[in-house]
């Protein structure tokens, strides 16, 4: 027994260690993705029999104006969310200064991270409330009337993204703070001796040491923008008239409220395909980085 074990342990030990993760990943990610793809080829109400419809769900999807509204909104999310990494870096640089009172400020910037995003959504819904919300109070201080952001189809997506941006910036700030703490003090010293100050120091000495952090911040922010769901669900339920819906929310709405699991699965599959682009970019960079080291 022991001799068999010894002979096989070259591959057996690593396999045993990887097995739990493989099984979990296989069941939760790969199997459910495949099942979702399978469902998307059927007409199904979630309980009854599944009817094979081939690519009909996809044909309907690409003729559905709501799909393109959601897709456009996801694009808006993605573009505006890209403000989170630079904003997070800016705040991290600010609170990283050795000034009295910075600890308190730093912990204040941490707040949105510990809040549930549902709570953030509720808070911002209050802020946007016409009449007595914070925004309305600010506008009335200047003698103006605040627009009802969440019921205006042109502003609503921007209002929701803005609310979601808050915790996202805080998240990027934490990433950059960790990165700033691991900067080499000798390199900073060398930069100072070489006469680099302010922008030059940031551009030529600090930022090059933060490329890994920046990469992670951008990748996670992009995926966060694409899978946004909770804020839309809490603040607008996709309204008014679906104008603030995103792909993830539309999928949920079609599946749960309209009992159209096949159609919902088709949306999920398209979303997965879009995300796969970013995930492939992320993985290829990580694999290249590992190959280098």
């Amino acid at each position, binding site marked *: 027994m022991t001799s068999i074990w010894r002979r096989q342990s070259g591959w057996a030990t690593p396999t045993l260690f990887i097995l739990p993760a493989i099984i979990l990943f296989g069941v939760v990610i790969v199997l459910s993705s495949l099942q979702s793809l399978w469902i998307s080829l059927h007409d199904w109400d979630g309980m009854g029999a599944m009817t094979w419809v081939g690519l009909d769900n996809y044909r309907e999807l690409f003729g559905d104006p709501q799909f393109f509204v959601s897709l456009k909104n996801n694009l808006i999310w993605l573009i505006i969310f890209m403000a989170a990494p630079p904003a997070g870096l800016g705040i991290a640089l600010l609170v990283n200064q050795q000034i009295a009172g910075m600890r308190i400020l730093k912990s204040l910037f941490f707040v949105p991270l510990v809040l549930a995003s549902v709570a953030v959504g509720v808070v911002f819904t209050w802020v946007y409330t016409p009449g007595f919300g914070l925004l309305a109070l600010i506008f009335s201080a200047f003698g103006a009337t605040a627009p009802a952001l969440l019921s205006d189809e042109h502003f609503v997506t921007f209002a929701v993204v803005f609310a979601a941006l808050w915790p996202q910036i805080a998240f990027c700030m934490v990433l950059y703070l960790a990165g700033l703490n691991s900067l080499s003090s000798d390199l900073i*010293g060398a930069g*100072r*001796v070489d*006469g*680099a*100050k302010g922008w*030059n120091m940031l551009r*030529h000495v600090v930022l090059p040491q933060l490329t890994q952090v920046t990469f992670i911040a951008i990748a996670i922010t992009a995926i966060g923008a694409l899978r946004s769901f909770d804020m839309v669900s809490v603040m607008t339920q996709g309204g008014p008239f679906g104008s603030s819906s995103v792909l993830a929310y539309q999928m949920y709405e079609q599946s749960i409220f309209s009992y159209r699991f096949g159609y919902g699965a088709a949306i999920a599959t398209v979303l997965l395909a879009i995300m796969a682009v970013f995930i492939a970019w992320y993985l290829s960079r990580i694999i290249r980085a590992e190959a280098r080291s």
Partner: protein
Amino acid sequence: MSSLELRQIEKRYGGYRALRGINLRVEPGEFIVMVGPSGCGKSTLLKSIAGLVQVDSGEMLINGRDVTKAEPGDRGIAMVFQSYALYPHMTVAENMGFGLRMAKRPRTEIDAAVGRAAQILRLTDQLDKLPKQLSGGQRQRVAIGRAITRSPEVFLFDEPLSNLDAALRTQMRVELSTLHAALGATMVYVTHDQVEAMTMASRIVVLNAGSVEQVGAPRDLYSNPVNRFVAGFLGAPRMNFFEAKIVEARLGQVSVETAGLGRFAMPVVANTPLAIGDTATIGIRPEALKLVGNRDGAHFSGAAQLVEYLGRETIVYADAAPLRCIGSDTGTGNVTIHLPGIAQLETGASLQIAFDPANAYLFGGAEQRTLSAPKTI
């Protein structure tokens, strides 16, 4: 070539006084090596000169210009770090030219300066490589090249050779001395390696607990240390120290008595604070001890506990009870003897040991100052 002057430099970290009133004048073209045990403040002092550490009080002048409050980049210094601190994303040429680029010098001037430095350091073929493609020794040379390119008034080195292997370290030591001779620049060099200090320095500064203990040429410091600390710090293997009692005190001479060594007379400086009955410390360098054939000429005897053959020299650790060394690293009380060549000795061999009292040191008083008469070099 520029001078550097430090006046009453003080630095505190909270309640801890890292630098305690440092005064030092470095003449143009000098190679100053600062040595001291870990935590003595030598690196803090170097970083203060660089401006990377802001001092609490005191003045710092480079070529007579007050730079105490100046930014590191405006002081006219260049620094070589222990970790090399090369910018990892820049090529060798970009690393070396970065200082001039920050100073907004024209492209042609930067290229010329980088080319010159690369030629001196034999880096011409490496200019387009990234630091990670270089060996440790090459990276070290790039760091030195980066300093040369800025043509600073004062070069600062922070333990630059401690990350290199022994063979490369010896080679770089020679290269740095050659470089100093070629550039004629003022250099301040921090190290904990006393071989580097002894071989490269015009003058050595010995630091201890944030204060300068002694400044002087290597030979002076070795032969005439001002106190027991400097005597114990310079020289490897370390000086043997024995506790002794003063049994007779006359002008210019005292007699001391030690358990195991007996009584002998030593020439001392004119005004010693010593009186009969005081305790003092006798110091004898391992190379001042000799093995003799019989008991008659010997001062003490012992048994070899450990024999280290180093080829051209042999180091013997001897148990010479009742004579016991104090303050030794090992705490065994063994006496260290440094013999030239290969001494054929077995462990446990009985040894008869002698020395010339004129080669011994006497330290006494509250600060353990050197009280024995100065040695002629």
